């Protein structure tokens, strides 16, 4: 017997009393807590110092380009590309001076909106690498990549893929990796393209960073400089209390977060889940062919949007804008959530004919309604069991017809367990399974009249396009007295001279009048 097996037994023997049970539970809880501790995180920071220039990039390779910013009436160069820098156009230069240096310089005003859009587009792009992408305005993306390493074959291939991808998209970026978001940001800003994998290495790596990479206010940097503190390492050596008193607890918290001593939660970027796209026509148009073509383009765009997000929509809204009239809106709904545009286009064509646009259209906008996750089972959705042959889902046919002639005009039928003939059936939605109540024993007509029709009587025989001959014995139905709509009728199958078989009854309550209730067809 190995001794290791015995030791717990001895422990139990020494503490056999029930009071010791919680004490023995404690270690188990602790070990459980160790397992449940948050998994190791690894942050990849994409720092885009050239974003103001690259966000405006229109692939113009011939001219030197620079971005300027209006600063209190002074227009100064913010960023310049390689060609401009070669001509000594540097950031901070006045625009006029830059033009004097390089008359062919292409100057563009900085656009924060375009930068935001570019950053969002990059965040969407980066979602292929990880499910957690965080936008740190104005020019930083943080990717949590610990969970992606295995899928992409390790750190180096993943990093390589991201760097080449960014280059292809036309962005020059600094990429660094660290176990905390702040550490990776600071490293990237300092231009250190390093990969630090364990928190233990953090202090060493951060110590060498100059204080100015931390984006602290100038006043703080200056006073730290005055104290002879130029690197993060120097700051870390200061007494914590004194540091917090002089520079605020915020700075200390930042240092602690960077080193992983404090948690540093970030917000994940979520791409918009509603689609909205506009198409502006060069001039007003009223030709429906042309407008429908544009709508189709928009729908194709929607399809692509849904496809990449594994989403589906049940409702889309088209808006047709006119120059002088107020906009015309057209909502399309489908009971079957889908993302295939063919069906939407079919519905649109039907509705478009009925729409009657008041004026020529200048802009068409397509917005999607609430989208939902596409589940595999919706593809097999149909009424009852499997659909027939090569056909599209029956729901598509139903929607096309109800789009043109109204929702109420298409339905299924079911039987109802009820003896009164007029209540023995009902309409139903097509997706409901019919309730197959017991089939009545005696013959029922294929046609039922909406209301029983009184029949004239001649020589004691009811007439329907001639005298009716009663066949067989009557079927007596006397029921429904409990709900005030009771019947007491003798039903007969009868035939008229033209050979038409009908279902007639004699009302036993009133004066024994005859009524036609059905035709056997």
């Amino acid at each position, binding site marked *: 017997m190995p001794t290791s097996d015995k030791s717990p037994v001895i422990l139990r023997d020494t503490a056999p009393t029930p009071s010791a049970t919680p004490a023995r539970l404690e270690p188990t809880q602790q070990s459980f807590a160790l397992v449940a501790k948050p998994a190791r995180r690894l942050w990849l920071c994409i720092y885009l110092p050239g974003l103001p220039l690259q966000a405006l990039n229109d692939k113009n390779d011939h001219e030197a380009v620079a971005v300027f910013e209006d600063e209190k009436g002074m227009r100064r160069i913010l960023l310049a590309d390689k060609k401009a820098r070669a001509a000594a156009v540097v950031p901070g230069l006045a625009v006029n001076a830059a033009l004097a240096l390089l008359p062919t310089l292409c100057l563009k005003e900085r656009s924060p909106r375009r930068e935001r859009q570019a950053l969002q587009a990059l965040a969407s792009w980066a979602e292929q690498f990880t499910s957690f992408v965080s936008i740190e305005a104005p020019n930083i993306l943080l990717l949590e990549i610990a969970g992606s390493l295995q899928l992409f074959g390790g750190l180096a291939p993943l990093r390589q893929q991201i760097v080449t991808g960014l280059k292809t998209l036309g962005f020059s970026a600094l990429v660094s990796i660290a176990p905390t978001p702040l550490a990776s940001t600071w490293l990237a800003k300092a231009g250190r393209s390093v990969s630090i994998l364990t928190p233990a290495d953090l202090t060493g790596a951060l110590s060498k960073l100059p204080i100015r990479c931390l984006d602290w206010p100038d006043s703080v940097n200056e006073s730290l400089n005055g104290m002879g503190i130029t690197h993060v390492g120097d700051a870390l050596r200061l007494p914590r209390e004194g540091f917090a008193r002089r520079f605020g607890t915020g700075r200390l918290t930042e240092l602690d977060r960077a080193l992983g001593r404090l948690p540093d939660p970030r917000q994940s970027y979520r791409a918009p889940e509603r689609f909205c796209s506009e198409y502006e026509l060069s001039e007003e148009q009223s030709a429906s062919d042309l407008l429908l073509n544009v709508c189709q383009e928009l729908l194709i765009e929607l399809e692509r949007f849904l496809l990449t997000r594994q989403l589906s929509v049940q409702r889309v809204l088209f808006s047709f804008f006119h120059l002088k009239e107020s906009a015309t809106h057209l909502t399309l709904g489908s009971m079957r959530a889908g993302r295939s545009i063919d069906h939407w286009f079919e519905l649109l064509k039907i509705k478009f004919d009925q729409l009657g646009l008041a004026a020529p259209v200048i802009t068409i906008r397509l917005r999607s309604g609430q989208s939902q996750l596409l589940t595999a089972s919706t593809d097999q959705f149909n009424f009852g069991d499997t659909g027939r042959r090569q056909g599209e889902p*029956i729901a598509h046919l139903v929607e096309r017809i109800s789009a043109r002639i109204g929702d109420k005009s298409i339905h299924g*039928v079911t039987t109802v367990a009820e003896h009164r003939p007029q209540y*023995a*059936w009902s309409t139903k939605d097509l997706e409901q399974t019919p309730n197959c109540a017991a089939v009545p024993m005696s013959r029922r*007509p*294929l046609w*039922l009249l*909406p209301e029983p029709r009184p029949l004239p009587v001649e020589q004691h025989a009811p007439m329907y396009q001639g005298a009716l001959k009663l066949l067989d014995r009557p079927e007596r139905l006397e029921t429904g007295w409990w709900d005030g709509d009771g019947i007491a009728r003798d039903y007969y199958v009868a035939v008229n001279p*033209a050979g038409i078989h009908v279902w007639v009854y004699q009302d036993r309550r009133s004066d024994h009048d005859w009524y036609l209730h059905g035709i056997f067809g």
Partner: protein
Amino acid sequence: MADPLEKLLQNPRLWRGREQTNTSTWQGLPSGYPKLDRHLPGGGWPQHALTEILLEHYGMGELQLLMPALARLSTPEDHELSDEAGWIAWIAPPFQPYPPALLQWGINLSRVLIVRPRQESETLWSAEQALSSGNCAAVLMWLDTMDDYSSRRLQLAAEKGQSWAIAFRPLAALSKASAAALRIQLMPGEKGTDLGILKSRGGRPAVLRNYAD
């Protein structure tokens, strides 16, 4: 040269007078009435084509005529072919099709679809949609006026969706041309309803006394 000619003769659309066409490639849908099947080319209703039924009054047995075939279409006997079970669309019926009776005839109610258009142009449009969608095994429609052009459209839609189109028309339509593959007239007879085959693609006109017999 012989090959295209042979091919042409095989085509059931080719009218060859008194000579019956080779029925091997032309499988009809058994109507459930042996007397009728004997007179229809292919031994049954022409599938994937338009059938016209002309009658003076509703109730002359026009539905009973179709019921056995419709029951077959909505509930195939062969279980492996359950995918084949198609919808049966009723477009603009003059009265209410009565579900208990449909059940008695063996129709699968979960496959019944009723459309009530407001006007005849919508009836034609809905019928064409239902026929060409490929969902419906049979489409029944009640039309008062239909021109040659519409009947051709219905015929094409039936071929496209591999569906059986059945149009009920008043007797007045007798004098009008139609692209239907089969035209039938129902008349009151001495013992029951007589059935006249007015036009039958690949078959011959005939009159059947009391077809249900």
